[in-house]
C-alpha cells in the first residue's frame, strides 16, 4: 500500500494514498465534527461542518471527501475554520430543529455558536405519519442526504426518495408526495438508521416521545442476530420496559454495514405480541 505524508496542524501524519483529510485528521487524533458523513455511505460533503483550511486554497475544503495529498498543509482549528464551523452551526440551529441531533449541543459550545443571532425562517412543518413503521418529521431535517443515499446506491437500491425542490425549499420527497406505501419504499428503514437528527424515527419511539414516556435511562441496548433469513444481520435492540422500541445495526458490522431489511427492522412484533 502506497502512503503519503501531509501536515495537520503542524504535525506530520502518514496515510494510505486515497485517504481523505477526515481519515488523516483521525490518524492525527484531531476530532473533526461531521453530520452528513457516515462510514457506510459515500461522502456528499453538504453540511460543511467538517471544513478545514488547506494552505494555498482560496476556500476551505470538506475534510470528509477531500483526498489527502503529499505535502499538503492543513489547519483544522484556524480562525477561518472556527468561524465557518460556528456559522454553519448557527445556520443549522436557527433553521432546523436540531434538538435530537447527537453532538449538536457540545459542538455549539465548542465553537461558541449562538443560533439566535441568525434567527429567521425555519423548515418547521407538520410531522408526516403515513405508516406504522416510521414517521418523517422534516422540521428536524437538515438535508444531509443520508437517507437518500441509504435508499439508493449505498444500501437499498430502491430509490423511493430523493431531494426535490430547490434551495431553502428543497426537501426529501417521494414522487409527487406519494405516501410511502404508494411509493417504491420497501420499508427497510435504512433511512431511519442513518438519520442524524431524529427526523426519521421509529413509530414506537415517536409515540413514546409524544406520550412523554421515552426514557433512555430505563433502556438497554443489546446486540443479537436477526431471527429471519440466513444472512445473519446483527440487530441492535433498544429495549424499554421489556419492549423493543428501536432496531438498528452497527455500521461497522461486516455482515450488514449497518443496513437491514423490513423484517429485521420492523418485523419483531411477534416477540412482544405473544400472550404470557
Amino acid at each position, binding site marked *: 500500500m502506497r502512503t503519503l505524508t501531509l501536515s495537520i496542524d503542524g504535525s506530520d501524519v502518514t496515510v494510505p494514498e486515497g485517504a481523505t483529510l477526515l481519515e488523516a485528521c483521525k490518524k492525527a487524533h484531531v476530532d473533526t465534527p461531521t453530520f452528513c458523513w457516515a462510514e457506510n455511505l459515500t461522502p456528499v460533503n453538504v453540511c460543511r461542518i467538517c471544513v478545514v483550511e488547506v494552505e494555498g486554497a482560496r476556500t476551505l475544503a470538506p475534510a470528509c471527501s477531500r483526498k489527502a495529498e503529499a505535502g499538503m498543509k492543513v489547519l483544522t482549528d484556524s480562525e477561518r475554520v472556527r468561524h465557518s464551523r460556528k456559522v454553519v452551526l448557527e445556520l443549522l440551529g436557527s433553521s432546523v430543529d436540531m434538538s435530537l441531533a447527537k453532538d449538536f449541543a457540545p459542538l455549539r459550545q465548542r465553537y461558541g455558536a449562538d443560533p439566535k443571532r441568525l434567527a429567521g425562517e425555519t423548515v418547521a412543518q407538520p410531522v408526516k405519519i403515513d*405508516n*406504522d*413503521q416510521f414517521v418523517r418529521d422534516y422540521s428536524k431535517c437538515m438535508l444531509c442526504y443520508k437517507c437518500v443515499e441509504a435508499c439508493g*446506491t449505498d444500501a437499498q*437500491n430502491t430509490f423511493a426518495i430523493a431531494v426535490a425542490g430547490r434551495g431553502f425549499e428543497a426537501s426529501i420527497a417521494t414522487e409527487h408526495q406519494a405516501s*410511502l*406505501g404508494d411509493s417504491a*419504499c*420497501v*420499508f427497510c428503514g435504512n433511512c431511519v438508521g442513518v438519520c442524524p437528527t431524529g427526523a426519521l424515527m421509529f413509530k414506537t419511539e415517536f409515540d413514546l416521545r409524544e406520550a412523554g414516556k421515552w426514557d433512555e435511562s430505563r433502556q*438497554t441496548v*443489546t*446486540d*443479537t*442476530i*436477526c*431471527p*429471519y*433469513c*440466513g*444472512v*445473519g444481520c*446483527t*440487530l441492535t*435492540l433498544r*429495549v424499554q420496559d*421489556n*419492549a*423493543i422500541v428501536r432496531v438498528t445495526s452497527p455500521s461497522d*458490522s*461486516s*455482515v450488514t454495514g449497518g443496513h437491514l*431489511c*423490513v*423484517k429485521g427492522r*420492523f*418485523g*419483531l*412484533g*411477534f*416477540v*412482544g*405480541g*405473544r*400472550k*404470557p
Partner: protein
Amino acid sequence: MLKAVRRGAKLYVVDPRRTSTCEWADGWLPVEVGSDISLSNGIARVILEEGLQNRAFIARACEGFEAFAQNVEQYPLARVTKETSVDAELIRRVARDYARADRAMICWTLGITEHHNAVDNVFSLINLGLLTGHVGKWGSGLNPLRGQNNVQGGGDSGALPNRLPGFQDVEDDAVRAAFDAKWGRPVPPKKGWHLTDMFHAMERRELTALYVIGENPAQSEADARHCHALLNGLDCLIAQDIVMTKTCEMAHVVLPATASFCEAEGTVTNSERRVQRVRKAVQPPGQARDDIEIISELSRRLGYELGLPSAEAAWDEMRSLSPMHGGMSYRRLEQLGGIQWPCPDESSPGSPFLHGRLWADPVEGPRAPFQVVHQDPPVEALDADFPLRLTTGRRLDSYNTGVQTGGYVSPLRQRETIELSPVDAKMLGVHPGDTVRVSSRRGNVTVEVAIDEHLKPGLTFMTLHAPDQVDVNQLTIDATDPKSGTAEFKAAAIRVEKL
C-alpha cells in the same frame, strides 16, 4: 451483489420468473421450471467445446472428468434450448463469461433445492465450479444462500439424522467413542430418519411419537392434507415453540419456549458459516422457558441429569467434541464479530472460504469428484386436466408460514394471490382481483388473481406465507429428493377455474 455489479461485476440471473434481481442483471435466463440440469450440462458442454475449462485444475484436483464430459456431450444447445426455453446465444454468453472470469460465484436458493432431484441439481452446479476452477478461492465458489438464520447452525451442531456435531459421521465408531466417553452413555450407532423418512415411518406406524421444536410442519409441509392425517395419527405429538402454531394446536403437549434470538443466550450460524452470538435482550413472557432448560428438564425426568448448563457451557462442550468449532470461544466470537468455520483452535482466524486444499501443492485430501447427472423433469407433468405449472416462493416482507411475520403490519403486504401470466389470464377470462379455484391432484384452494406481466404463459406463482388464508400446500406435491428429503415445492401441476 449489487455492490459488486456497481464495481463492474457481471450478473446473470437464472429464474423462471422475472424478479427484481433480473433488472440489475446483464442477462436473465428464464428457464422452464425443473430444467436446471439441462442448463448446467449445456453450459458445461459449451465450455468444453470452446476449450474454456480449467485443464490444470481438473488434472490436479478432480476426478471423474471423463465420464462427466461424455455425459454433457449429450446436451448440445439445440436440446438445451428446447428443454430450458433459454436462448442459445445467451447460454453461450453465460458459459463464456463464467469460464473466463477471473473470479466467479454461483449462488442459489430454493429454486435449485426444492425439487425431487435437488441434490443432482446441486451436483450439476458443483460440476461447473470444478470445470472452471472457480472453487476454493477468495471471491469464488458455490454458495447456497440460506433461508433461515440458523439452518446452517442446526446442521453444524448435529441436527441431522446421520451426523454428530461438526458433521461427524454417526456411524464412525471412533467418532462415536469420543461422544460416548464425554456423555457417559452410548450414542445410537445407526443413523436416524430425516423429515421425509419420518413421515414415511408414520405411514407405516413405525413412528408414533414426535417432538417438534420450532417448526410448523402442519403448514410448511407439501401436500398438507396428507401431512395432517399423519400428524393426527400420532400417539404423542409434542410441540415446543414460541407462538401457538397450527402444529401446536394439533399437539398433545405444548412446551412454550423463548425466542432464541432475543430472550436467550446462544449462537447461530449464517449462510457464510459465520458463528454469531445471539443475546438476551428481553424477558420471555409468562411461563416460557429457555430451550436448554426445557430439554434439561425433560432429560432429568427421563432419567438422565444434564444439570442446567448455560448456553456457553453447552457451546464449550460442543467445541470440545467438534474440531471445526474448537477455536470459537464466546470471547473470540465477541471480539471478532463472529467466526467462520472451520476454526480448529484459538489461534485460527476462521475460514472465509472452503476447499482451499484443492489448490495446495500437492492437493490435500481426496480429489473433488465430478458427478454424472441427467436432466429429469418435475415429477408431475402437465396434462389436459392440470395444464398449468405452479411454482411457489416467498416475498420480501414475509417469512415462511408467516408465524413470525404475521406479528407485524407490513405496508408492503398484499392479499395472497395466484399470479398468472397475461396470456393465461386472458384465456381464463379473469382479471386482477377475481376469485378463482386452484386445484391440483391433492387438493384445492380459492384465491384472488394477480397478473405478473413478465410471467411466461403456463407458469403460475403463489407463496406459502398465509396458510390460514390460502393454504397453498394443499396443492403442492410431496415428491421428495431421496438424499435431502426436500419436497418438490417448486413444481406442481394445477388447474385454475374462474368462480
